[in-house]
């Protein structure tokens, strides 16, 4: 058995294989049941497609290199297994999730501030998430060069410009974020 496989990979038979189908498309392999639980009922036509609910072709987990996980071992119900991720370090215990709204966007997002090490990373993430660009920050003029301005609500309920205070202070006082747009943003110094 093993011999045949080695042979096959030397000659790269797959490349010369004759079959119906576009070149470059591969057979989807069925996976053992695992993955994120989605307990909304699947509609009848999609439920039979793949072996596993919620995991699509594009999004497969590879078995760890050390040992293939055996189905049903150890004998823990998947409900329990999926219930939480193991803590890596004490510090990462509770995430610091804040809501992010963007003027004009139909729904809000949530981000974990603890994931970011500073303002540049945070702003980049926001720009990626909402597909916009922020101007350059300066203490005197705020964000110049774009009609979007990142703001946050602090403990006292005031709306503040992101970037004025040290990162740690920002982390502990930020309750939610809002990407302001257009005329609303002028008051916070977008450098008209």
């Amino acid at each position: 058995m093993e011999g045949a496989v080695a042979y096959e990979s030397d000659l790269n038979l797959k490349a010369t294989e004759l079959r119906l189908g576009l070149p470059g498309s591969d057979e989807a392999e069925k996976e053992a049941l695992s993955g994120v639980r989605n307990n909304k009922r699947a509609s009848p036509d999609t439920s039979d497609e793949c072996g596993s609910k919620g995991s699509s072709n594009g999004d497969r987990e590879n078995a760890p290199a050390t040992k293939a996980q055996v189905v049903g071992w150890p004998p823990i119900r998947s409900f329990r297994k999926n219930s939480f991720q193991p803590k890596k370090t004490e510090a990462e215990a509770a995430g610091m999730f804040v809501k992010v709204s963007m003027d004009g966007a139909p729904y809000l997002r949530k981000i974990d501030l603890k994931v970011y090490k500073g303002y540049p990373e945070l702003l980049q993430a926001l720009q990626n998430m909402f597909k916009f660009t922020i101007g350059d920050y300066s203490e005197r003029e705020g964000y110049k060069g774009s009609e979007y301005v990142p703001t946050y609500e602090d403990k006292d309920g005031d709306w503040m410009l992101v970037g004025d205070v040290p990162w740690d202070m920002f982390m502990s006082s930020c309750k939610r974020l809002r990407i302001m747009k257009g005329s609303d943003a002028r008051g916070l110094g977008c450098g008209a």
Partner: protein
Amino acid sequence: MSEDRNEMPEPEVDTRRREIAGVLTGEFQSPSPDQVLENVLENVLLFLTSRRDRNAVSLVCKSWYRAEALTRSDLFIGNCYAVSPRRAIERFRRVRSVVLKGKPRFADFNLMPPNWGAYFTPWVTAMATSYPWLEKVYLKRMFVTDRDLELLAQSFPAFKELVLVCCDGFGTSGLAGIASKCRQLRVLDLIEDEVADDEVDWISCFPESGTCLESLIFDCIECPINFEALERLVARSPSLRKLRLNRYVSIGQLYRLMIRAPQLTHLGSGSFSSSDIVAQGDQEPDYISAFAACRSLVCLSGFREIIPDYLPAIYPVCANLTSLNFSYANINTEQLKSVICHCHKLQIFWVLDSVCDEGLQAVAATCKELRELRVFPIDAREDSEGPVSEVGLQAISEGCRKLQSILYFCQRMTNAAVIAMSKNCSDLVVFRLCIMGRHRPDHITGEPMDEGFGAIVMNCKKLTRLAISGLLTDKAFSYIGKYGKLVRTLSVAFAGDSDMGLKYVLEGCPKLQKLEIRDSPFGDAALRSGLHHYYNMRFLWMSSCRLSRQGCEEIARAMPGLVVEVIRNENEEDKDGFEILYMYRSLERPRIDAPEFVTIL
């Protein structure tokens, strides 16, 4: 409730009672002696509740069989395919409560392809017309649809208790039907079920005027609930004693519920964390006094997404707790110690191995009344870090001498610790040790774990349930066969050397009822050695062993009262190959609802 009995008289029994009364006063024409005896017997049997006793009674003679059948009100069916609804209903006419169990346990671990069976529909359909006075339904590992629940809610006006354990097939729309139509409902317990999110606000469906709810358990529901409606529900349910919330209830919401229901005895605390970021200086409710007000609280669980800072809130109730479930609480040794030091009365304790051996040592030091311990792995993989080991097991064995039941997941273990437990905890009834690395030996001596498990069956004279793991040779099985005379349930995985292993067990354990084996080298010859016993068992499960189709066919031919199912993997091309043998005794012909990948021999 007694009003129900008055409203719905049972003519037959009343007539009999009148006859007896008539005999005593001399007014009546005396019935035959047989009839008198039967009347008396029925009245006596009303007091008999144990089903084993009742089964014995029904074997005495036809007359006793009839009397018992008329007076049995609690129907227990351990395998829903062992008997048909029609047969059960024809024999037992006056049933008030039904227990039905469906899939075998290994189905919980994805070993059984989905849609195997265990449908509640034929049962509820039959009972709807035949058991109008049905009050309680308890289902385990059954497939229950929303329509089934709807039919149940419509058909039984006196319905009081619904308990669903490890079931699936239904969603929040089914629950809405139960909530709104079962006006006498006292108990709605959903335990480890898979409940589909139909986006129906079932909590709002309970009667507005007030409920007789005593127990509401929904911690397994993985979708948000309408909290304001829940708060109002708790406020109008004065009999509520047991409430277990799901992880969508925050600690702030928990507080609001607790102050409305200080009479609770059982509480599942939901997420035990805050939903919003609570910045410093914000006023948080006084959780400690909310707990302190619950003077009757004896059972605490939940902690689904615990923020350990909130743990001190439970200190006031610790001294009274008899049951504490931390098996979803990701806490460390110190955090556990701060709680467990108060829990002197604790009898049942479930915990994650994140507390480490040292945490278990703290348990051993304080919980002298402990009867049941379960230690679950936070990282359920074969080669993960193992925070608990033989050290924790040894400590527990020395500190908790009254232990009756243990489930222990670990990465490494020694025979010495298992032997110590066998000697220290002589009351053990359930011993389930799962060494997560397959075929792993004693990590200090390098020897198989035979001697450890051998000591358990030898020394624990009350043992009825055993689960074995680690590197095990046929010797372990010979011990089990020789000493495990009371063992009823045995779970085997990746163990044994040859057919002899299974033979020892099948020939040696007369009380064996449930045998589940996976990935062990037992073949057809071993299977044959159990022919004398299979009719006494509820089921046998063997998956990924060395059985052949012919071997299974032989069994099916030899034992017509057994249903022998061979179950293929969905991927399996070879129509003769199979992964699973599942066989069970049955009074019926083989079921017709089996899916395509199941072949009944």
